[in-house]
């Protein structure tokens, strides 16, 4: 193959550098925990129990719900979580 005839990258040419995870907080004291129900079957049952356990420790909980599991969260919900919660718990599978 001629050197002039390079292959063309078929990908979106996204940077391959990994995004570092946010550091986990050492304690939940004083933080707000978001609980996101993605509308998977019985996710609400699981998350409500998690929320109750967190609240029992005196930690503030905010509840969020995606309208459908089929689609990514609407921008308004994403923005509310970013604005109001410090950490988020969600249930991914049924």
């Amino acid at each position, binding site marked *: *193959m*001629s*050197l*002039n*005839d*390079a*292959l*063309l*990258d*078929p*990908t*979106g*040419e*996204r940077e391959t550098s990994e995004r570092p995870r946010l550091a986990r907080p050492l304690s939940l004291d004083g933080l707000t925990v978001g609980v996101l129900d993605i509308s998977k079957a019985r996710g609400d049952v699981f998350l409500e129990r998690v929320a109750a356990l967190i609240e029992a420790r005196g930690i503030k909980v905010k509840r969020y719900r995606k*309208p*459908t*599991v*089929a*689609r*990514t969260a609407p921008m308004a919900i994403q923005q509310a979580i970013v604005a109001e919660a410090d950490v988020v718990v969600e249930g991914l599978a049924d």
Partner: protein
Amino acid sequence: MQENGLVVVVKRDCPTCVMIAPVLQQLVEQGSLMVYSQDDPAFPEGIADVADDTLLDASYRLDVEIVPTLVRFEDGREVDRTYGWDRAAWESLTGIGDLGADLPAFKPGCGALNQEQDRLAELKIRHDDTPMVSRHVQIGAKEDPIEACYERGWSDGLPVIPPTQTRVLAMLDGTTRSADEVLGLMPSNLDACTVEKVAINAVMAGCRPEYLPVVLAAIEAVLDEDYCLHGTLATTRFVGPVAIVNGPIARQIGMNGRGNALGQGNRANDTIGRAVQLAVRNIGGGKPQGVDRATLGNPGKISYCFCEDEEGSAWAPLTVDRGLAAGANAVTVFAGYGLQGVIDDLARTPEELVETMAASLRAVDNVKKFPGPDCLLVVCPEHERTFMEGRWDKARVHKELMARMAVPADSVLRGLGGMAEGVKPEMAGKTVSKLLPNGLMIVRAGGGAGKFSGIIAGWTPGTPESSRPVTKEVKT
């Protein structure tokens, strides 16, 4: 190229160039002409300083179309040109009278080598004169390009055609759309999906350039919000994009809507569907074990594309059902999987046949799942004939099928028949329907022999939150 004077481009393989060799020699001796030879620097004989243009770079820069081409430069700029042999034009351009007095007054030239398709592509690439802006991936001289594509994660598991600049440039000739046109943001990475990126993936899939407009329409369809590409990728269910092509373009590019329409062996069917999936994989990052979480998937996730047999059918095509004019070139994309056969050798009336088809539709996914997923019913020619003998057009078949989708909830309750699956107990006494009102599409395809239709089941019931079929017209 020179600042002042004359330049001529010739080739030995051109009889006109051979005929005018004495004229060229005369002009060179008078000190005003530089000769470029496209195929043989020893031609024309007797001229000492013929410039070797076998790489055709000078011809390309001059954009020569015919040899001989004679050009006059003044102060580095072209001021005049003529091509072929036309004594009057040559005398006027050179300012020298009585040129080639023993030659005929006129003889047309020949095609220039730099205009031959493969040479022209090579020249455009060497002169960086292409619309492509994608990152170049240089591979080693001894590296196998197909293996290099595997190693970079660009393959769906089968070998891909290495997307060289030459092949991508040729692919882009298949459309008049600009290479940098953005069709949308491709989930799940939401990177810009340009015509160029689609063309690269179409090369890898094995498409011919004339398929590209169909691939582009299919990509536009899956990028439509209604199709819900992110959700259909991330699902654990079976589906992938099923593309149905309508309109004269299907026949023009050699697609198959007849025998084995949903099977293998037709380049257009197989590579168009594959190009869509490769674009989703490579541009959007939708890879199995990554964003694609399918439990089983289905073989159609390599490629699932066919055309409706419009010429062979008495029914209105899918495009008309989808609100377009009959004869429109369009691609409809449906999130679907597999094929559930609907065999009825014995039905001789529409009334009998519709019962079989309705019962088969009610069984999709799970006989007790109500509602079930949207469905695409592919009716074979012999079954269409049975309907037509009773004067049932497609709209009538659709209506009669939908009327048979409702069953008493009591017959499909959870636990009934020893099966845990079913409708909730609170539905007892009510009626439930297998399909939502807009949950059924019908197309006509298949070979002439065999009473074998098929159901392509969808993802979920097609509510607005789920995936809906999307139709896009093909833009050439």
